[in-house]
C-alpha cells in the first residue's frame, strides 16, 4: 500500500517537512510498514498502553514562583526583536498549494 500524493501533500502542509525526492517518500513508506507490524499482535480485550511511563508517578510541583525574569536571555536568540517583543510575520504563511509550489510530488 503506497501513501497517496494527497496524504503526502497534507503532511507537508501540517508538519512543514519536505519529502524532497522519491528516496524521502520511500523512507516514509518503510517507516509505516515497520510500524504496521504492530497489527500482527492480537490486542482484543487488552487496555492500550499509553507510554512506558504509564505506571510512574506524575510528580506534582508546589505552586511557587521559581523562574522567569530572563527576557534578555530569551531574546538573545531572536533574529529580530522590538522592545523585548519577539517579531513574527503578520500571520501564518501557508505552504503554497501543490500546483503552485516546486515539489517533486507534482510529478507523481
Amino acid at each position, binding site marked *: 500500500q503506497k501513501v497517496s500524493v494527497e496524504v503526502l501533500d497534507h503532511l507537508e502542509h501540517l508538519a512543514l517537512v519536505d519529502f524532497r525526492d522519491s528516496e524521502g517518500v520511500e523512507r516514509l513508506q518503510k517507516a509505516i510498514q515497520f510500524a504496521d507490524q504492530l497489527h500482527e499482535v492480537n490486542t482484543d480485550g487488552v487496555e492500550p498502553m*499509553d507510554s512506558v511511563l504509564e505506571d510512574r508517578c506524575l510528580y506534582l510541583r508546589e505552586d*511557587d514562583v521559581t*523562574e522567569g525574569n530572563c527576557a534578555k536571555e530569551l531574546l538573545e536568540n531572536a533574529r529580530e526583536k522590538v522592545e523585548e517583543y*519577539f517579531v513574527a510575520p503578520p500571520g501564518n504563511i501557508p505552504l503554497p498549494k501543490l500546483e503552485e509550489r516546486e515539489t517533486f510530488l507534482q510529478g507523481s
Partner: protein
Amino acid sequence: LAPWIPVVGLEIHAQISSNSKLFSGSQVQFAAPPNSLVSFFDASLPGTLPVLNRRCVEAAVMTGLALNCSINKKSLFDRKHYFYADLPAGYQITQQRVPIAVNGSLSYSLYIDNKMSQMVTKTVRIKQIQLEQDSGKSLHDDARSQTLVDLNRAGVGLMEVVMEPDLCCGEEAAAAVRELQLILQTLGSSQAVMAEGQLRVDANVSVHHPGEPYGVRTEVKNINSIRFLAKAVDYEIQRQIEELENGGTVLNETRAFDSKLGCTVPMRDKEGKQDYRFMPEPNLPPLILYDAKSLPANMNHQQVINIDWIHERLPDLPSVKREKLVEQYGILPEHSFTLLNEDGLAEFFESVVKQTQMKPKKVIGWILNDLLSYLKQHSLTVKESPVSSFLLADLLKLLEKKEISSTAAKRVLAELWKGEGKTPLEIVKEQKLELLQDQKELEQICQAVIDGQQNE
C-alpha cells in the same frame, strides 16, 4: 414559514488562579513587561520538560465537583499540534482523550419575561472539563506588516469547560456564563474577569427546522463581555436564518464578533478544517487522583490529591447562598439573584439588616430600588458607594422609629448621595423633615387648612 430552532454550544476557557503556570514555575500575572514572566520551558527551548502544578489540578477538581461532574481518577495529557507565532512549541498540551472531569451540569436562572417578575431555572449539561496550556499573546502591527509576540501568558493554566449544545439564545448563554463566573469566583479557582481575559467564551451556533438534523455550525470568537456574548449569539442566529431563508448556505467557519458594528465577520487566518494530529504527551505519565477509599498508605502527602478532602472543603455555591438568603431573610428568590449578582451587595444588605430593626423584606426594597439604581446610574460598584451600610442603616432606623416619613427618607437619601459627610439626622434637622408627633399641633394645622378653604 417553518420555525427555526437555534442551537448554541459554549466552550469556555477559564484562567486558573495560581501563582505559577501549569507546567513551569514562572509567574502568572496580568500586566507585566513583555516576556518577563517566561521560563525556558514556556519559550520551548530544547531540553525543557513540563512539571505539573498541584494547585492547577486542585482548581480543576474543585470546579468539576461544583459542576456535578464525575472526576476521572485517571486522566491523560495530549499534544494538539498547530503552527502559530504565540505557540512556541508548535503544540499545546491539553487533555483530549481522557480529561479530568466529565458529565456534569450547570443550573442557571433567567427572567421569564421582560418585566423581570418571575424567574425560571434551566440546566445546561457539561460535557467535560480539561486542563490545558494558554498560548502567548500576539500584537498585530499591520503598519509594519509584523506581529509582536509576548509569551507572558504562554503556559498559564486553563480549565476548558465544554458545554453540550443545550442553549437556544443569547439570553440563556449570558445567564449560564454569568452563573459559571460566580461559581468560579466563589471557589477561587479562577477570578473569571472577562475584561482581563481570565474568562473567554467561544460560541458554536447553528439553526435547523424541527424534526430535521442539526444545521451547519459556525464558531464565534472574540467575545469580550457577557453583554456582547448575548448580542453575538443572537446576531449569528439571525444572520444564519436570513442566509438560509434567502436560499444561501451557512459555511462551517470561524467568525469574530465586532462589538462596534454589533455583527459577526469571517475571521482571517483560519485555513479550513484543522488537523491537530493529537498524540499522547510522552513526557507526562497519567494523572492519578485519589479519594478516601483509595488513598495510598505510604505516599508523600504533597504528592497526593484527595477528591473527598477537596469536596468537604468546597464553599457554599451561589445557589446555596441564595437559598440561605431567602430562608433567613424572607426575601424573594429574584431578590437573592440580584444580591449575588452585584459584588458586595449581599454583604451590604446583611450589614444593614444587622444594624436596624426594620424587617429584611422592607430593607431589601431600599437596597434594590434605591441604592442599586443609584449605583447603576452612576456606574459605581458597591465598594465605591458614597452611602455606606452604616449611613443607610442610620437612615432606616429613623424611618423605623417613625421620626421621618418614607418620602422624607428618600429626600435624605438623595442628599446623602452627595457624599458631603453629613449624617441622616443632620440632614433631617437641616431640612426640617421631622414628622410631627404632637396631636395638638397637628389639629391646629388641619384646622388652619380647613379655615383657609372656607374663606375662598
